[in-house]
């Protein structure tokens, strides 16, 4: 309870009308810069950071927290409305969110994202308040073997999203894994799939891949069909979340939060893995799995909560150990140092007031984000009523600008176009996009963690299972793989006990389940 009173002290000193005004200003600025396609939260925070210099420390923190949450939420907004994710952790949001937007449910998608972010951000910040120093010590123990096991679990779960055609699903997955191979081999220093160019010597940016395939591919597809199909008008739906939306969102919010926070707290974690673990989990648990891929609200609520909880979790290693683990955390570290805070082992004991003010500011920024942006969601949704040709030209302009400004190299525009053409081809031949994106994200993680674990153990396979968490996760993987077989063996036995014949394939069981043989 000691921490709680300290946090309360931080809140008391932070909540003044003037400070709230700074927070509101920060949220608005952050959101507006964050919604520019191609500008992710990290970049939005970096661009706006200088605005906060020159303020009193408390005001600077509060405005900064507003910018931070505003920038994150702005990134989700573009993912949902325009299909242009600004960073790798909002890629999953784009998949269902944009489908919802196309079906006239943009306002609901934005609302569930905003509320989910609020719940996850608040719970995550409280998690930092109570557990930061203790958690940090445990978290550094979790290394490559555990992370490898979790990635393997994610890959096993990917089979659930391969789509109706397994063949096409696997083609897309392996395309993604191949794209993930591009770049320098970290262990031997050999360039792979570089085609002799130095520009391909580093890993491809998942944002360029995703924006190319999602946004550019779609624009090209629409352009290719302009003459044959009439322009579709996006239906204008309800402005707010209905009862059903609430009922279907709260579970994913809580589960996403629970998944995201630990990943943020582990230095090797990263924000992408929890977002798609949440997506896959929601699809498995959903009563309407057929809606996934067509705009399921659970597929927005879960990943968004996971993303924000993970972002809050990154404060654990950042504050307790001085370790930045994501792009945004790297900018935060620079920001904190700019405010005279030196994150590290001594921070919590040496400058406690600053830490509590910062954490209180995060809570305030998060709350104001919800207050300001929830009413704005129906307004943002109206953006989609811009006539399609202008909307698509705008998307193309900002996507290109975003790709170009990273390196000021025209080669990146060429890359964007290549992935746009790939996206067009995938639509033409009915290849699902999701397995490809997961391949691009999971492939490199899988490889680097496997090789790190093996490099540490000197090539001995025992290095893959020398952490308790890794063993536990492998047990879950084994369960996931074996359960269907075990269940299939148990089921035919059940009807015989009550003297009835096994139902034939295609018939329905008593439970109304279709028997699949």
């Amino acid at each position, binding site marked *: 309870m000691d921490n709680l009173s300290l946090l309360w002290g931080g809140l008391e000193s932070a909540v003044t009308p003037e400070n709230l005004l700074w927070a509101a200003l920060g949220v608005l600025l952050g959101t507006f810069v964050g919604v520019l396609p191609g500008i992710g939260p990290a*970049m939005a925070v*970096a661009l706006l950071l200088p605005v906060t210099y020159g303020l009193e420390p408390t005001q600077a923190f509060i405005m900064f927290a507003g910018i931070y949450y505003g920038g994150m939420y702005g990134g989700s907004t573009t993912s949902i409305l325009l299909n242009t994710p600004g960073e790798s952790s909002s890629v999953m949001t784009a998949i269902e969110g944009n489908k919802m937007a196309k079906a006239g449910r943009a306002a609901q998608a934005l609302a569930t994202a905003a509320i989910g972010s609020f719940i996850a951000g608040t719970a995550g910040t409280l998690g930092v308040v109570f557990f930061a120093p203790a958690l940090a010590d445990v978290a550094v123990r979790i290394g490559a073997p555990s992370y490898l096991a979790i990635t393997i679990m994610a890959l096993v779960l990917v089979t659930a999203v391969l789509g109706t055609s397994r063949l096409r699903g696997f083609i897309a997955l392996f395309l993604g894994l191949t794209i993930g191979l591009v770049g320098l081999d970290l262990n*031997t220093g050999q*360039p792979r799939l570089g085609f002799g160019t130095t520009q391909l010597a580093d890993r491809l940016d998942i944002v360029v891949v995703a924006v190319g395939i999602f946004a550019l591919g779609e624009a090209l597809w629409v352009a290719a069909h302009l003459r044959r199909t009439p322009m579709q008008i996006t239906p204008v739906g309800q402005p707010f979340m209905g009862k059903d939306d609430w009922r279907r969102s709260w579970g994913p919010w809580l589960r996403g939060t629970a998944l995201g926070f630990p990943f943020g707290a582990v230095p090797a974690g990263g924000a992408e893995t929890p977002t798609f673990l949440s997506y896959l989990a929601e699809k498995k648990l959903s009563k309407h799995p057929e809606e996934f891929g067509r705009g399921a609200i659970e597929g927005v609520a879960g990943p968004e909560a996971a993303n924000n909880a993970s972002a809050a979790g990154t404060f654990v290693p950042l504050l307790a150990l001085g370790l930045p683990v994501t792009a945004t*955390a790297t900018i935060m570290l620079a920001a904190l140092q700019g405010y005279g805070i030196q994150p590290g082992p001594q921070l919590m004991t040496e400058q406690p007031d600053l830490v509590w003010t910062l954490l209180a500011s995060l809570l305030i920024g998060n709350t104001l984000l919800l207050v300001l942006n929830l009413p704005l969601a129906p307004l943002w949704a109206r953006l989609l009523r811009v006539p399609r040709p202008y909307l698509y030209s705008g998307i193309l302009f900002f996507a290109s600008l975003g790709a170009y400004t990273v390196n000021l190299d025209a080669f990146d525009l060429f890359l964007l176009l290549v992935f746009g053409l790939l996206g067009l081809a995938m639509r033409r031949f009915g290849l699902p996009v999701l397995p490809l994106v997961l391949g691009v994200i999971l492939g490199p993680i899988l490889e680097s963690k496997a090789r790190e674990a093996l490099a*540490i153990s000197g090539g001995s396979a025992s290095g893959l299972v020398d952490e308790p968490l890794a063993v536990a996760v492998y047990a879950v993987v084994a369960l996931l793989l074996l359960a269907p077989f075990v269940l299939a063996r148990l089921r035919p036995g059940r009807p015989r006990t009550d003297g009835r014949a096994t139902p034939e394939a295609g018939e329905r069981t008593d439970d109304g389940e279709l028997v699949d043989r």
Partner: protein
Amino acid sequence: MLTATRALAAAVAAVVVTVTAGCGVTRGDASRDLAMWIPNSPGGGYDQTGRAAVSVMEHDDVTGGDFEVTNILGAGGSVALTRLMGAAGDEHTLMTMGLGVVGSAYSFALPFKVTDATPIAQLIEDQEGVLVPTDSPYESIDDFVDAWRADPAGIAVGGGSSPGGPDHLFPMQLAEAVGIEPSTVRYVPYDGGGPLTSALLGDKIAVGFSGLGEFEGQIAAGELRVLAVSGEERLARGPAADVPTLTESGIDLVFTNWRGVLAPPDLSEERRAELIAFIEEMHASPEWRRALEDNGWTDALVTGDDFGRFLDEQDARVASTLEEVGLL
């Protein structure tokens, strides 16, 4: 962390674009303008050194013209080096570089080496350190070297750079200096100081090799211990001050991560002399003294032909180390 640096770079690039677009007015004579290329992301080591040098030269108006600083990212500096080679005869371009770029030219199999450019000057050097977690059984560098000699393949060591980078070259050259076959060393590459720190704190690896800047917090807090520093003399300041050098412990190795400035190939003798004079004038400035002090860099000015000979020697040393390890 790759994405981290890229995002940061993008942000700063965007700011730079906005800012440079805003000021199209040139103070001085355009023919005296210079470009400074930085081969890694904003905030990185080359970036700090290059920008510090430029700001001193601008402050003292050394060149009479303007500077334009551009970060050219990619392939450990190879992208920037390739562009520098393509700018042969360009008298208005400089590039900040260092030991890492020497190695990258090999690991990325470039058709040229850093020695093919025009050497201008070495500016600074940074010491590397040998780091262990506090509960490590190694109390001194001798403890570690003895254990390492006994079982080089059994001890996992790590560094913050991929093969060919300074944190990889240092343990390999240390191994060679104490009579261990470098190819038997179990080296685990990490993507920078952050992941390396968590690997050390989590006892994933026994020993880490890296520049000390990113570890000052942990060293001061007593969570990491420095067994030795790699330079000629002990560090004067900071939490690793008074840690013994390798040579004090009887190991014949001095290893520094240095940084300097190159110009494109095929420069006229006069222009080369002029560029060297700029750097010398900058070096004499009190502003530069302050930059050295603020960043904890060791002054190491070597210019012109002397720097050229130093580059030849470094290039040969990197090549032979990479060959020993079997990476060439």
